[in-house]
């Protein structure tokens, strides 16, 4: 009876109920859509970063994560790579080197970040090879180098031209290596287009100390996005080696995770404010509806309705508004989220400045990724807030004296 009364009380003023539910639904739909864009963006950024700059699991020399000192290498990199491939045969395991230095041409020079990669394997997990706009991605040719198009412009070089990479690893003498430009890439990311270069890992190993040196052996599962992987099997596969450390992606890319976390918290704060505004609107609606029915409540109390049931009825009204608003919000958001999921938002030119991950080659079209569990939680929070908004009017009704309520006009 109490639930039936609550439903009919809402039904008796359909316009007010419809407006209130619409308000909640629109706010919910905005939150769902905004959250799905945020999810999609961060998933794309982090997945791209995991695949091109780290891995779901990485093996590096202890300290390299912090210092990025070129002499901190993992010796016998191929051995490590094979050990990890045996542990995770379904994953792609790649070796990488990262060297800072100077790239010179007959007409110019520029500081550069040279990444040594295994071309075929890297092409399977990274988007960098897809961004080659002139020439070709790396092959087994250890003399080839792929440059960002702006870097090439700075150096005044084109395909087939020779460039020299110079670097100094710790206290060693300056070393250099000659490359021939095999491809130019354009990512839209300033850091990559102006300062990045790629060559085979084998060619860069000549510049590093030790036996088969690499800076990173990365394990990547392209299909699992930003999921976390238990690193224990990798630790075990290292067979007690103390010259390596095994890290999950969130420790290999701590800044990125922190940035995603902070962004998430800021969003929650915004959603919280939005929820509060909606709750105040709801409070007003329920309070108005309670004030209008004082005499009716007086009648109910007069014929013996326990005040607790009156409270429950009003809380039900709040909850029903919350549920209807939440469901309405889900329905309203389906269209925009579907469109944003299938078509996506082309950040294009904005990417250079807005890319939160820095120098990562990623698809400039960001797609919404709705998270049903997140939406369910938000609907739940919405219902709780709606019930809380109804709590004060409900308390007001509970404290009514029947005789005073009956005299109410």
């Amino acid at each position, binding site marked *: *009876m109490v639930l039936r*009364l609550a439903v*009919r*009380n809402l*039904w*008796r003023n359909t316009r007010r109920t419809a407006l209130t539910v619409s308000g909640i639904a629109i706010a919910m739909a905005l939150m769902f859509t905004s959250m799905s864009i945020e999810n999609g963006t961060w998933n794309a950024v982090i997945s791209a970063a995991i695949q091109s700059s780290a891995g779901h699991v990485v093996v590096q020399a202890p300290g390299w994560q912090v210092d990025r000192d070129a002499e901190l290498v993992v010796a016998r990199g191929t051995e490590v790579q094979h050990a990890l491939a045996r542990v995770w045969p379904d994953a792609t395991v790649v070796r990488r080197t990262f060297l800072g230095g100077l790239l010179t041409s007959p007409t110019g020079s520029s500081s550069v970040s040279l990444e040594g990669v295994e071309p075929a394997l890297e092409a399977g997990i990274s988007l960098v090879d897809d961004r080659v706009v002139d020439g070709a991605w790396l092959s087994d040719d250890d003399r080839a180098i792929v440059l960002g198009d702006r870097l090439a412009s700075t150096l005044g070089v084109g395909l087939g031209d020779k460039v020299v990479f110079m670097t100094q690893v710790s206290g060693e003498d300056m070393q250099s290596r000659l490359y021939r430009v095999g491809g130019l890439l354009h990512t839209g990311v300033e850091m990559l287009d102006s300062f990045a270069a790629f060559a085979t890992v084998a060619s860069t190993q000549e510049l590093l100390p030790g036996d088969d040196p690499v800076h990173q052996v990365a394990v990547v599962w392209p299909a699992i996005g930003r999921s976390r992987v238990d690193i224990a099997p990798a630790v075990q596969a290292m067979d007690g080696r103390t010259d390596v450390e095994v890290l999950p992606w969130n420790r290999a890319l701590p800044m990125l995770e922190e940035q995603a976390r902070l962004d998430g918290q800021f969003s929650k704060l915004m959603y919280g404010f939005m929820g509060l505004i909606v709750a105040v609107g709801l409070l007003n609606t329920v309070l108005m509806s309670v004030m209008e029915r004082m*005499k*009716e409540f007086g*009648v*109910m*109390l*007069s*014929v*013996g*309705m*326990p*005040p607790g*049931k009156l409270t429950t009825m009003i809380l039900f009204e709040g909850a029903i508004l919350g549920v209807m608003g939440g469901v309405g919000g889900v329905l309203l958001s389906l269209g925009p989220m579907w469109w944003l999921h299938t078509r996506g938002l082309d950040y294009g030119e904005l990417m250079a400045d807005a890319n939160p991950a820095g120098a990562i080659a990623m698809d400039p079209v960001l797609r919404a990724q709705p998270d049903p569990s997140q939406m369910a939680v938000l609907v739940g929070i919405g219902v709780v807030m709606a019930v809380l908004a109804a709590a004060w009017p409900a308390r007001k009704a509970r404290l009514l004296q*029947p*005789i005073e309520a*009956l005299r109410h006009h």
Partner: protein
Amino acid sequence: MALIEIRGLRRVYTQGEFTIQALAGVDLDLDKGEFAALMGPSGSGKSTLLNIIGGLDEPDGGAVRIEGRDLATMSASARADLRRNRLGFVFQAYNLIPVLTAIENAEFVLVLQGVPADERRARATKALADVGLAGLENRLPNQLSGGQQQRVAIARAIAPQPALVLADEPTANLDSKTSHELIELMRTLNREHGVTFLFATHDPHLLDAVDRVVRLVDGSIAEDRTRAGAGA
């Protein structure tokens, strides 16, 4: 033991600097099966007395006992139980719950009492039939005339089979024909079903119908007159 025993009942209202003595020491007994009315001019204390008997208002002095239970010793919750289980109310303005149909209004108190669905539906249907509303069970209050709404209010009051029905000006908003029909109806319920009624009224037709008239003046009983065979 009287159904209602009232001793030295006082009620004072304060409005700013003024105090109004609504009841100034009322003594009254009402037995089971009575069909009685409180009459008197506006402000004489009729409604106040009815509200205090119904546990809706609290006196400033004196005692009210219903079936031997002293209202002053009862908590608000216990008074709500008493209203739900032993008393029925009929108001001048009908006071039906607008979102419930006639039969849902009639069974409202039965729901609060926890009567099983089948039984309460049967009792509410019978109560509506008793007040002449068979066939109108599914109408909402705004689909009924004033007289029909008051009949629903009476059905709501009698369906739980209360010890006493308190009716405050039940015919005041009705035309004389409807008023007459309702008085006849309540008289029948009193005679055939033994329902005890206590009215607060100005209506001369109702005053003609009751067995006993208690006249209040300035919060005191000025006359308590019992008439054998009234309304016959």
